[in-house]
């Protein structure tokens, strides 16, 4: 036992006992406790095992900077949160917490053998040791490393909770509600400015909560906090957020806040989100993040019971917990004397104050000595002892450049302080420039990059009165910058306090040549030896040393370690700290759950699902669907007992012999309107449109200006100044964007307007020799006769009384129509056509059948036969280009010599020697058999299917100089052997195209 609850004091509710378990053992704490304070009050000293060496570790801090005491909190299998800092876990009744990274138990961990083997596990041991053989990585090294190293384990079930997201705007966002933040929020909000104040802790007040004897303007600190927050709460222009961490500073003053809403509750209400992401756009930001006490670096400084002096003070004053019964303080700053003096006043024995400064003198030492506490100056720590907690510390006293006096002092808690490091994380994230301050031995905010100001001790201000006044001033200035004026305020403060100045770095040791094994980064187990080794191996840049040793790269972001690592590197390299420079601070300030980033975008809401007006009908018919972008498209309609192959064969035969029904609603549609519409389309597409008659349509190819195929579709002239343009399903948005780009920025003089109508039209393709017979009884005001409505004819009329645009067109090679009706009528018209077609054996078919039918005809699919390097001529579509046009998008590039090279990849057909073999799409093609790798690849298969109507397999392919190879035999090397194929033309069925004009 070391820590204990003292008789009185603290802000916990002693009337409300809380039961909880840690590693299966039951404990009791009070409402208002954290897991850390409650365990300390119960005398628990070991909280976990360390990351790499599995050394026992205790709690080191009292706030979010805690590097050691990481725990897993379990509500159930799905609500199991690893790597939480015990110092931030609020106690609730029934809380179940587990230590991490130990097996089988905290007191006895078999992998602590790692510690004995530490000479074998130096910096970068991962890089060095596990390089060879490569095959061993997945099977041997990785599983071992994952079990041995690493932190907590993730939950095994999906997260059942809700996480919400909210955008907010304000004039002044104040981050941190310590004295500076509260003062800033008070003055800024008095001006009328909209103010948000957030703090990561469950209650506002920051370090003032540790000051029971301080008074501000005549009130106790606690009363001042209560009154100030009540004032802020009464103002309609103020938003207050506790348990809310500003985790990231993003460009243009966007701050990410993580609000934890139900984490602290024993029974979280189901109607509230568990956590919330706030994205706050603030006109001004006030960073009042305070400062973090720095550890001292000496051998054995990671033993449980070694703790920041400020943390001991927090446990005493906020939680009524004495962290030890017999303590030693080692300090390089005056401020830490308060911890020893306060514990002394609470009845704890202070065995020794060892001040590492040879010239330490003045008030704090005098007061300590008057209280009867032994104080030595010019001290250092040579080591600590105690298997599962510190029991003894060896203090050395320096004189004339050497350790000339050592003494062993018994203790059960060793408080340390190297002074305070201003919290410049958010300022640095905002890309503000830091400057090293010699007097403070710290980096302080210098030049801002965003409209923000730091206030209080995060910019090096020392002393409560100065911090409060700085907060008030910065609050007033920030409000003024948003057009709200207010007078600032002067606070009168009475408090016992000493300077926070200190000294970073490593305590001197007896033998400097033998670098001691003192921990710099507790969470990643990085020691001075590791840093020294990295420098011996030639790493001098602090960014490189950081990555090589992983110092500062753990989940605590080096809050307690960065300055000490930097100071050590600087002194070893014989450079100044600013010369060595600081590593970049990255978000998040503390770990943030993925849940808030996902927010509501989970499951069905992860990505929108687009369905056509006829979707439900296809579902009822048992269609199998495929995803095409966000669209759900019916792939085939299997009958009982049919697999895909059988269904597709039947659907294909039905279209070729009778009539099929296909939902083409997902095609992109753009209405192009205006006196210059024809000119606009002629400039964009390779085809000519000036001569296209009203009531006619044309297959259009769209290139990029680099000459390669970008999209295709059918373009119909509805009126002199009105075109109905279709695009591929996947290309709809990008083609519309490209059209807008050229229209707005290259040809703004054209009188032409574009409207996306993709979702306004339901498109029903009726394809096959009986198509006309199916439609005839349903349409009015339309003459379907071939003479009046030839292939590529377009007309407007009615179907089932519904207004319709009717296209005579075919992606199957058969007589075909595409019925366009307003989307709301799509299902009704589809059902009417389906009913009318029953006597003709009408067969609904899906995208798989559509693919086969078009491949039989050699029609390309953009994105399947093309890949961004295919010209119209490569695809065999050179005939579509209007040669007489002076220009169109891509024309200049098509004139380049290489675009006509005879060995370009050209689209051809392939027939396998064995008609039953269907090639694999994407398979490579070689010219001669029997090659060994690397083979000379001359092309690849783009499409391959079984063709029911031909009774054999067919394929399309891009092959170098392909058209000149028609008739040749080529080879497709596959794992099972080479497949011989004959090169053919691209059209396999109805080569003359007679069926189209039926």
């Amino acid at each position: 036992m070391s820590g204990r609850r003292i008789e009185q004091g603290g802000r916990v509710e002693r009337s409300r006992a809380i039961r909880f378990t840690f590693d299966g053992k039951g404990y009791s704490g009070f409402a208002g406790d954290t897991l850390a304070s409650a365990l300390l009050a119960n005398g628990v000293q070991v909280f976990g095992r360390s990351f790499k060496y599995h050394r026992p570790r205790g709690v080191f801090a009292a706030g979010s900077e805690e590097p050691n005491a990481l725990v897993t909190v379990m509500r159930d299998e799905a609500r199991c949160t690893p790597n939480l800092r015990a110092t931030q876990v609020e106690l609730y009744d029934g809380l179940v917490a587990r230590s991490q990274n130990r097996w089988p138990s905290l007191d006895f961990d078999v992998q602590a053998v790692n510690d004995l083997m530490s000479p074998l596990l130096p910096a970068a041991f991962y890089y060095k040791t596990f390089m060879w053989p490569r095959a061993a990585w997945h099977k041997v090294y990785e599983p071992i490393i994952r079990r041995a190293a690493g932190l907590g384990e993730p939950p095994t079930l999906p997260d059942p909770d809700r996480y919400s997201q909210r955008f907010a705007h304000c004039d002044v966002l104040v981050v941190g509600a310590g004295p500076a933040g509260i003062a800033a929020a008070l003055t800024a909000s008095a001006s009328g400015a909209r103010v948000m104040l957030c703090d990561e802790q469950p209650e506002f007040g920051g370090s003032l909560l540790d000051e029971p004897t301080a008074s501000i303007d005549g009130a106790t600190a606690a009363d001042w906090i209560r009154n100030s927050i009540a004032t802020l709460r009464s103002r309609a222009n103020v938003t207050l957020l506790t348990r809310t961490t500003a985790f990231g500073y993003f460009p243009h003053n966007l701050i990410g806040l993580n609000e934890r809403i139900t984490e602290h509750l024993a029974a979280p209400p189901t109607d509230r989100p568990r956590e919330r992401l706030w994205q706050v756009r603030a006109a001004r930001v006030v960073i009042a993040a305070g400062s973090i006490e720095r550890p001292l670096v000496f051998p054995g400084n990671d033993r449980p019971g070694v703790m920041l002096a400020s943390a001991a003070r927090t446990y005493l004053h906020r939680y009524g917990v004495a962290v030890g019964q017999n303590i030693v303080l080692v300090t390089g700053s005056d401020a830490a004397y308060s911890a020893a003096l306060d514990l002394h006043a609470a009845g704890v024995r202070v065995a020794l104050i060892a001040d590492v400064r040879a010239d330490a003198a003045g008030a704090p030492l005098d007061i300590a000595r008057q209280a009867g506490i032994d104080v030595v100056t010019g001290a250092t720590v040579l080591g600590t002892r105690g298997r599962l907690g510190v029991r003894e510390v060896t203090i050395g006293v320096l004189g004339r450049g050497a350790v000339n006096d050592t003494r062993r002092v018994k203790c059960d808690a060793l408080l340390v302080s190297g002074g305070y490091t201003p919290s410049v994380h958010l300022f640095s994230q905002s890309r503000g420039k830091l400057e090293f301050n010699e007097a403070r031995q710290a980096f302080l905010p210098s030049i801002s990059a965003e409209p923000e100001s730091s206030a209080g001790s995060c910019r090096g201000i020392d002393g409560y009165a100065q911090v409060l006044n700085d907060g008030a001033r910065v609050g007033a200035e920030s409000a003024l910058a948003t057009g709200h004026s207010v007078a600032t305020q002067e606070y009168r403060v009475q408090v016992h306090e000493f300077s926070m100045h200190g000294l970073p770095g490593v305590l001197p040791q007896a033998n400097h040549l033998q670098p001691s094994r003192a921990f710099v980064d507790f969470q990643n187990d990085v020691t001075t030896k590791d840093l020294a080794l990295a420098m011996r191996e030639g790493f001098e840049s602090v960014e490189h040393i950081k990555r090589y040793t992983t110092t500062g790269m753990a989940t605590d972001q080096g809050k307690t370690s960065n300055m000490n690592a930097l100071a050590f590197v600087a002194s070893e390299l014989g450079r100044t700290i600013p010369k060595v420079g600081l590593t970049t601070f990255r978000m998040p300030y503390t770990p943030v759950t993925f849940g808030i980033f996902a927010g509501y975008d989970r499951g069905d809401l992860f990505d929108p699902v687009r369905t056509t007006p006829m979707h439900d009908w296809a579902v009822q018919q048992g269609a199998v669907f495929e995803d095409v972008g966000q669209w759900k498209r019916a792939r085939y309609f299997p009958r009982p007992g049919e697999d895909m192959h059988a269904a597709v064969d039947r659907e294909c035969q039905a279209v070729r012999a009778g009539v099929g029904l296909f939902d083409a609603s997902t095609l992109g549609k753009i209405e192009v309107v205006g006196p210059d519409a024809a000119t606009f389309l002629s400039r964009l597409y390779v085809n000519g449109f000036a001569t296209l008659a009203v009531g006619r349509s044309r297959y259009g190819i769209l290139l990029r200006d680099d000459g390669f195929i970008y999209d295709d579709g059918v373009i119909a002239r509805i009126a002199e100044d009105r075109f109905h343009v279709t695009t591929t399903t996947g290309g709809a948005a990008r083609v519309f964007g490209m059209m807008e780009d050229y229209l707005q920025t290259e040809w703004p003089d054209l009188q032409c307007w574009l409207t996306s109508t993709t979702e306004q039209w339901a498109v029903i393709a009726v394809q096959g020799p009986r198509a006309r017979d199916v439609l005839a009884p349903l349409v009015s005001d339309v003459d379907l006769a071939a003479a009046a409505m030839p292939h590529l004819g377009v007309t407007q009329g009615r179907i089932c009384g519904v207004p319709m645009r009717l296209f005579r067109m075919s992606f199957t090679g058969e007589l075909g129509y595409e019925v366009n009706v307003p989307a709301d009528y799509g299902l009704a018209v589809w059902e009417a056509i389906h009913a009318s077609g029953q006597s003709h054996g009408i067969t609904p078919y899906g995208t798989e059948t559509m693919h086969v039918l078009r491949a039989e005809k050699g029609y390309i699919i953009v994105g399947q036969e093309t890949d961004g390097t295919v010209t119209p001529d490569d695809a065999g579509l050179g005939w579509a280009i209007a040669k007489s046009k002076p220009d169109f998008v891509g024309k200049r590039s098509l004139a380049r010599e290489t675009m006509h090279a005879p060995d370009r990849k050209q689209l051809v057909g392939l027939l396998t020697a064995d008609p039953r073999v269907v090639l694999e799409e994407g398979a490579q093609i070689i010219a001669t058999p029997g090659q060994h790798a690397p083979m000379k690849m001359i092309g690849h298969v783009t499409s391959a299917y079984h063709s029911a109507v031909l009774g054999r397999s067919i394929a399309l392919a891009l092959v170098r100089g392909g058209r000149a190879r028609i008739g040749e035999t080529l080879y497709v090397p596959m794992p099972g052997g080479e497949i011989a194929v004959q090169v053919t033309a691209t059209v396999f069925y109805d080569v003359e195209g007679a069926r189209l004009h039926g």
Partner: protein
Amino acid sequence: MLLIQCPYCGPRPELEFAYAGQAHVARPADPSATTPDQWTEFLYLRNNTRGIHAERWRHVRGCARFFNALRDTTTDHFLATYRAGEPMPVLPMGQKP
């Protein structure tokens, strides 16, 4: 997330916009009259600026219009946004892309 001043709509969050490449790269009036080098430069060569960059944005989830902007690539600060077709504004400190 950047805050971008659409010259038509005012300040809007970045997620309403799409980046659209370098600004003031005009398509030649008569591409067929360009030399291969001129055409290559138009098609492929773009600045990789450290400092002020003239670039195009589209307020694609707003007014859908393309416009131009001057942005400092070292700070992500926008120095100006202006409508397509308007001349590049003169910056107060005389900085140029």
